[in-house]
């Protein structure tokens, strides 16, 4: 290890087992041993870096990129699968504040408990006690049980202990958000002071500004590898740009997904509206006026022509064609078929076209037509719902459903 370095990380890799269906009990392990599958998720992939003595380094990266894992490895809470980590000097980590606090004990007693967890001896704690109490701004509350503290007081006490542990290497994970603005500023100044004393600091934070203020270098961790190391301002610029790009890509992806979903929905609806065995199939259905011009707006009493092109997939006979006219609210206005109209059984042998002429009796509203082809035993050969839509617009003001032809005999 280089004697100028405080931390040397060489080629470390770390993966976690992510269980799909984790059962810890013997029964579960026996019964579902096949189900006990897991995925090895690589969190850190061959990372190396070193930190010089007295240097402050920031770790940045988006959530889940592995920066907190790196810090945990440095703290020796977890161990790498591969590679080595060397650190020189006493390490203190501010990963968890207020560890081991006992609610019934006074703030003063808890300082001893908490500081002892950081590896301080009683003598060392005695020496720091006044500094800690003063820094926490708790004053006379220090002798009250911790359970009577507000959450701000609790965090202030916890932070004061943690930051007053004189370490050679200080590891900090996203905790400079303690207390009010004043206290935060104070913490920050303290951190600067600690750094001036020659302590090596590694910070994990999403508050890039804090890192820029205190660190000489930033390490950008991305998907388990180091993307860039360098001047914080520079690295952060690239990092933010990459984040923005990712955000846009994500947005784009969501947009296409939305469009795809809509398309899917439309297709599904179309399918619902249409089914049949399709020995004969309607290929095109349209409404036109007497000149054969396609239109969907008709007057009362106007002639409308329903054109139905069909394709024959397999010759079929003994069928009937039915037309239902529905109003927009789902009311059946009129139904007729080739049987009713005395056209006899139809026979389809080759592609062709059927045209029906209506004289429109319906009053102002929106309508659609369903067209069916049935066999004699009512099997659906073609069922085409909402094959055409049209509306009737009349300014004459007649109401109801349809025109009843009438005469005023005495007028």
């Amino acid at each position, binding site marked *: 290890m280089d004697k100028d370095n405080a931390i040397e990380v060489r080629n470390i890799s770390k993966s976690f087992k992510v269980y799909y269906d984790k059962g810890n009990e013997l029964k579960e392990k026996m019964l579902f041993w096949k189900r006990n599958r897991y995925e090895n998720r690589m969190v850190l992939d061959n990372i190396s870096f070193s930190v010089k003595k007295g240097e402050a380094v920031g770790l940045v990266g988006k959530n889940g990129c592995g920066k907190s894992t790196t810090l945990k490895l440095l703290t020796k809470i977890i161990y790498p699968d591969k590679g080595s980590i060397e650190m020189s000097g006493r390490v203190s980590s501010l990963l968890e504040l207020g560890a081991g606090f006992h609610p019934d004990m006074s703030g003063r007693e808890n300082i001893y408990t908490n500081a002892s*967890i950081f590896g301080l001896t009683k003598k060392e704690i005695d020496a720091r006690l006044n500094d800690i109490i003063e820094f926490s701004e708790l004053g006379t509350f220090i002798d009250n049980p911790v359970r009577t503290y507000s959450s701000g007081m609790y965090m202030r006490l916890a932070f004061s202990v943690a930051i007053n542990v004189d370490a050679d290497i200080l590891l900090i994970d996203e905790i400079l958000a303690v207390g009010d603005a004043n206290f935060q500023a104070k913490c920050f100044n303290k951190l600067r002071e600690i750094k001036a004393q020659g302590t090596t600091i590694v910070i994990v934070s999403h508050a890039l500004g804090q890192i820029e203020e205190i660190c000489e270098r930033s390490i950008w961790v991305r998907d388990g590898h180091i993307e860039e190391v360098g001047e914080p301002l520079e690295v952060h610029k690239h990092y933010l740009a990459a984040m923005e790009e990712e955000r846009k890509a994500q947005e784009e992806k969501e947009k296409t997904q939305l469009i795809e979903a809509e398309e899917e929905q439309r297709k599904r609806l179309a399918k619902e509206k249409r089914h049949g065995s399709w020995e004969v199939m309607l290929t095109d259905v349209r409404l036109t006026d007497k000149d054969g011009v396609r239109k969907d707006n008709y007057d009362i009493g106007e002639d409308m022509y329903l054109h139905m092109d069909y394709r024959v997939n397999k010759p079929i006979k003994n069928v009937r064609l039915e037309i239902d006219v529905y109003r927009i609210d789902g009311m059946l206005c009129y139904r007729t078929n080739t049987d009713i109209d005395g056209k006899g059984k139809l026979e389809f042998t080759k592609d062709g076209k059927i045209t029906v002429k209506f004289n429109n009796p319906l009053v102002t509203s929106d309508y659609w037509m369903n067209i069916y082809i049935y066999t004699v035993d009512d099997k659906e050969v073609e069922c085409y719902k909402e094959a055409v839509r049209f509306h009737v617009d009349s300014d004459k003001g007649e109401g109801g459903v349809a025109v009843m032809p009438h005469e005023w005999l005495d007028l």
Partner: protein
Amino acid sequence: MSIFKELYEYREMIFSLVRKDLRGRYKGSVLGFFWTFLNPFLQLMVFTLVFSIIMPQDIDQYYLFLFVALVPWMFFASAVQDGSTSILRETNMVKKIFFPREVLPIATVTSGFVNMLLVFLVIFVTLIFSGRGIKLSTIIYLPIVMIVQYILCLGIALIVASVTVYFRDLQYILGILVMALQYMTPVMYDMSRVQDAAEKMGWPQMVTLYNLNPMTPIITIYRNILYYQTVPHINTLIEALVIGIAFIVIGELLFKKLQKGFAEQF
């Protein structure tokens, strides 16, 4: 060897955990810490009542015979059972902070040990009032056997604490095991009973089997010192010490290996 150095640096953590445990044990009760003495005293009263009136025994002052063995046994039982959950109870700390993980089982066992020491005050008082008194030539062996027992208990605690993290059922299995072991250790009876039984059954290996139990020599020594007030056999003492050291070495080796994965098990 570095583990000793590390543990020495973290000695204050051990002390404060022990303090927290002892003080927290009867927290909120009216009598508070006084229960530490009241509890064994009341237990002793019950024994006296039952074994001198309802179920009289051939053994002279049976309540004392039982009590001097039961107190060390209860330390053993708590070391094994509380020891097995010592890591699990502090998952938050283990997940978030570095410290030598051995601190947790050590603190648990030490807290049980200190509790036993306090109960021994009750034993001394009882010995004096019962007329047996305390003999200086034998009582000097008491600290030795206590330390030997502490080593053994710590060794076992290191093993069960680390294994329980991976196999949680162990804590419940141990509950039954410790209960069964109590009847298979000369706590409520003497080793002479076992020898008699072995002879009667014509199965001398039973005595050997009993001696395999690491708590057998220790309980025997406690009773020799406090009840019979005789100097313990040096062989028994050495046997107990060897077993204790074996357990603590194996315990630490296993613990060291398993502790690397602790934080990932929660």
